[in-house]
């Protein structure tokens, strides 16, 4: 069973101390929502857990191992504020590269993932021509083919309409029912049962 342990984590950005001595555990099947005011360190915390930033102090361990391991990188899917899509490439090309960077997937699965977020007819459209919500859907479609256990989603519902939010919420629930872990930041209400809350 997967387990993420955050121990006495501190984060400083410039002269601002964002948080100190932050500790929590996340077990398989759990969803954690990080909330807090703008600039409270939600994104910084997610980036630390993803391995993009180093903490000032404290430690992060996954399955009792350090997070700087090949297995952790394989087990983690991080989606930041930015959708990680190139405007010059089509939806399917972007998704193919994104999943290649995370886990390799066959072409048919990519088509299926785009269908699930309602973008099957747009698969060959250049991402630069899509709306902000459609771009977000393309990026989030990677969740439907991800093999990663730990999902780190920074404001996943931004720019999504109510249908889009429901699709992603259902996928998060399904992931956690299959013993996955999910940490997300959002200012919106979440209809996910047994949602754990962490306020920064």
């Amino acid at each position, binding site marked *: 069973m997967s387990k993420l342990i955050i121990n006495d984590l501190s984060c400083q950005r410039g002269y601002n101390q964002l948080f100190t001595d932050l500790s929590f555990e996340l077990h398989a099947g759990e969803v954690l929502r990080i909330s807090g005011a703008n600039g409270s360190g939600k994104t910084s915390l997610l980036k630390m857990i993803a391995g993009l930033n180093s903490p000032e102090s404290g430690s992060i361990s996954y399955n009792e191992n350090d997070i700087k391991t*090949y297995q952790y*990188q394989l087990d*983690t899917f991080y989606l930041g504020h930015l959708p*990680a899509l*190139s405007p*010059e*490439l089509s939806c399917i090309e972007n998704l193919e590269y994104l999943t290649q*960077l995370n886990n390799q997937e066959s072409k048919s699965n990519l088509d299926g993932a785009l269908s699930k977020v309602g973008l099957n007819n747009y698969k060959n459209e250049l991402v630069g021509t899509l709306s902000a919500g459609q771009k977000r859907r393309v990026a989030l479609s990677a969740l439907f083919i991800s093999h990663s256990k730990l999902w780190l989603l920074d404001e996943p519902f931004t720019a999504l309409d109510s249908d889009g939010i429901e699709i992603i919420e259902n996928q998060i629930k399904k992931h956690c029912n299959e013993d996955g872990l999910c940490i997300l930041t959002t200012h919106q209400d979440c209809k996910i049962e047994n949602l754990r809350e962490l306020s920064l």
Partner: protein
Amino acid sequence: MSIFIKTLRRGLKMALRNPSSFLNPLLFFVIAISLFPIAISPESHTLSNMAPGIIWVTAMLSVLLSLNALFHYDYDNGVLEQMIISHHPLPLILLAKTTAHWILTGLPIILLSPLLGMALFLDSKNIYILILTLFLATPCLSLIGAIGASLIVGIKNSGMLLSLLILPLYIPILIFGTSAVSQSQFNLPIDGQLYFLGSVLILSLITSPFVSALALRISLE
């Protein structure tokens, strides 16, 4: 290895769909060289003496012009973050991106140089030496440039900073590249210059992807 091919193909595809990203530096290369005969002298002896320097300096500056875009777009849209946290080796991904950059800037410069060499009255033997030195040196310009580009990736309007960082590292390549063609014009041996450029190529090929990867991680912290 598959991530190398995928990243390379992606880089080329993106550039072909946004051709101004690599055509502008090439246009600068051609236009700048074609202005020298007008500004200095159309006389063949003068131009052939100056040709190695003119072609080399403009080649270097056009590569420098294109370097800012090497990581900039991927940083702006969040793809660079995905590359860093990927389970694939980051140096391999960066090597693929740098190879795409060389194919789009260095290679066209090499292909255009015989034509521009002829326009500056270089004879066929010296054009061959020019191509050889550019073939050895333009990958170095991309590889060394990648280090600078990765250091300034998060900084806005950093074109001047990039030039200040990278130009001193380009100077030895410029000196040995131009002197190889100049010495060849006087039928002097050029083995030393070619060995130097070859060594710099091997050294930058081995070290640049790792240094760029480290610099990117630091820049994105």
